[in-house]
């Protein structure tokens, strides 16, 4: 009798035992840090031993912090460029490279995707050399082709830092997002194009009426992930601008600001406040994007 009940208990609790490593690890390294950072955001800190409760003081200070404003502005500009330049370019490239008449399209697919393989740190170091005034390839090419001065300071002039960053990220990510669009394009039913042709639709009308609805779920995914990725931008500007925010903080992004306040200035409380503000901002923007693109309407959309 006792044996049977022990056996029953084992069967009942064994699954919990086996999922417990994940639950414990997730709680320790996932849930606890999230709640701890929320708690930290209510303190001015110097490590765990020194902290002073300020309530919402960190968030209040954030609202009047010019560096935070600069970081928000830079991040939003970068995100807008990602959405309005990167995604159309990726889609255009995907459409071009899905054309059967194009010779060597497999090679071009690989070539455009290749920058993604090397990682942001490598790309940042590479473009740091390419953008050098006087002797860098970018300046020399611009001087040779357009007769522009060869000493343009892409990474030292505050008004040129953001274009340089956007250009670098386009080089890196256009090919990456192109792969998603290529996969989506291959999933669009070719019979729909034939039906549209029969109905007299031209290429543009076919694109709007067949292609766009066909790739919409993937496009929404790419849009949301590209936006979130833009708001998380860190390594690229940090390395490209030589471990700094660039002249006049022109390359300061929100995550860079979070890193600086938390790990250079040492105020983990304020950094947590920045982090939570960023997380809430990204959540709101993502929800907004999903709403306006009709992502929640599912297959009926």
């Amino acid at each position, binding site marked *: 009798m006792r*044996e049977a009940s*022990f*056996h029953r208990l*084992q*069967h009942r609790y*064994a699954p919990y035992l086996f999922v417990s490593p994940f639950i414990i690890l997730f709680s320790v390294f996932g849930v606890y840090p999230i709640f701890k950072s929320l708690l930290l955001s209510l303190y*001015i800190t*110097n*490590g*765990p*031993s*020194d902290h*002073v409760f300020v309530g919402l003081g960190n968030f209040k*200070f954030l609202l009047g912090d*010019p*560096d935070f404003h600069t970081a928000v502005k830079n991040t939003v500009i970068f995100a807008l460029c990602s959405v309005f330049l990167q995604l159309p370019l990726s889609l255009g490239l995907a459409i071009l490279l899905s054309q059967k008449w194009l010779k060597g399209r497999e090679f071009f697919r690989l070539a455009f995707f290749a920058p993604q393989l090397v990682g942001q740190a490598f790309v940042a170091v590479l473009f740091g*050399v390419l953008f*050098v*005034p*006087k*002797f*860098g390839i970018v300046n020399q090419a611009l001087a040779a082709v357009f007769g522009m*001065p060869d*000493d343009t*300071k892409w990474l*030292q*002039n*505050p008004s040129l830092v953001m274009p340089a960053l956007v250009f670098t990220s386009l080089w890196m990510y256009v090919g990456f997002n192109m792969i998603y669009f290529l996969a989506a394009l291959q999933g669009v039913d070719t019979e729909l194009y034939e039906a549209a042709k029969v109905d007299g639709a031209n290429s543009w009308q076919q694109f709007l009426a067949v292609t766009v609805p066909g790739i919409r779920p993937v496009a929404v995914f790419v849009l949301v992930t590209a936006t979130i990725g833009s708001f998380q931008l860190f390594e690229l500007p940090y390395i490209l601008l030589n*471990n*700094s*925010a660039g*002249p*006049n*903080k022109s390359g300061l992004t929100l995550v860079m600001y979070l890193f600086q306040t938390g*790990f*250079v*200035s*040492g*105020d983990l409380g304020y950094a947590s406040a920045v982090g939570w503000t960023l997380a809430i901002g990204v959540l709101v923007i993502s929800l907004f994007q999903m709403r306006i693109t009709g992502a929640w309407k599912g297959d009926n959309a």
Partner: protein
Amino acid sequence: MPTFPYGKAAFSFVILALVSGLFVTLHRVEPRKTTLTMWTFADTHYESYRKALPAFEAAHPGVTVKVEHVNIQAVTSRLQAAFHANLNVPDVVEVEIGSAGSFFRGPLEHVGFLDLTDRIKKSGLWERMVQSRFATYTMQGHIFGLPHDVHPVVLACRRDLLEKAGIDINSIETWDDFIKAARKVTIPGKQYMLELSDSGTDNLEVMLFQRGGGYFDPEGRCIFDNEIGLQTMLFYVPLVAGKDKIGSTLGSNQILTQAVEQGYMLCLFAPDWRTKSMERDIPRMSGNMALMPLPAVSKGGIRTSTWGGTMLGIAKKTTHPDLAWELAQYLYLNTADLANRFKDTNIIPPLKEAWNEPAFKEPRPYWSNQPLGAVYAKLAPQVPPQYSSPYVVTAKAKFGEALVSCVQYYNANGANGFEDYARKRIKQSADEVRRLVARNPYHKPQGSEN
């Protein structure tokens, strides 16, 4: 008898894991030897310490020193995290001057480094070393670091090209003389007299320190918007902006090599450590380069400044503080080793008696046979102090923002209304720093009302 529901094999694994875990936990092997761990961020320091340490170990049987080369950013972030989380920290660590202040953010009693004040005063090091170098590593009168260097700044010049242009660097005494000479040789877009940045503060702060200014005063108050800061900005901006500029910059490493070789830059600010980089990166200029003391602000004024620095700190948590202090003294006070290290790094130690070693007087062919060590050693006692604050990095960035704005203004409007604009813009930057400082409950500048 109850059986394990997933079979004998799974049961054996669980038992094995439990037994081995218990064994490892209960039988921790204590190291038989005393091991001191040291972190350094500079590859030149790392190599020279590796050469010097066997003698220290031989003199201390049973002691091993493990020197680790850690990335400069990682030293700060890893050490701060280790101090905060009360984790294992290295016994001895070298910290770069720019990040030293970040370790003094909290209350004095929670600084992770050992207070070295008594040891320094009792051993006579206070008198034997260049005293201004202790300033950055001092918090509320307590010294937490031993200075590794002095880093006086001179100008490294393309002697051959300047001579060709009829300029004798020995005749230049003040910045006015220098600018007059610069007008002769500067060709906008092709050749500049001096490497000067219009967006970063490295060169600007060399001039700020030379004039006796700084980011903070000894009491920790932000002062870069005082009259010295303003005058420095008013002097500096026309050198990098407007039609009469004499300075520009391209970047570092390979680009600097080309810029110097091709004569794009004729002079560069050269703290001692940078001369070794030039010898290594621009070897073809050997014999064409020469050093000159910084031009003075006015006749008879200071002919040097400072750029960069390193401190050696001992972690408060070390279990061997006396041994760590012995190691620090061995590395920083042994004159014969310092002379050898000078040959490897060109870095002048702050220990004044070391400068009498023959190595510091040797002529250097790269520098047109000038005695590099003697040139720097002569200037070392005049090196101005840089006072410490946890907000130095922020202040530097804010001063840089003011510089960029002033450059933009000067490019658009020239000298018209520039002084008023610069005064307001620098004050705005300094006020932003003060606003941050005022938030810190542990860091109240002495005499501050905040």
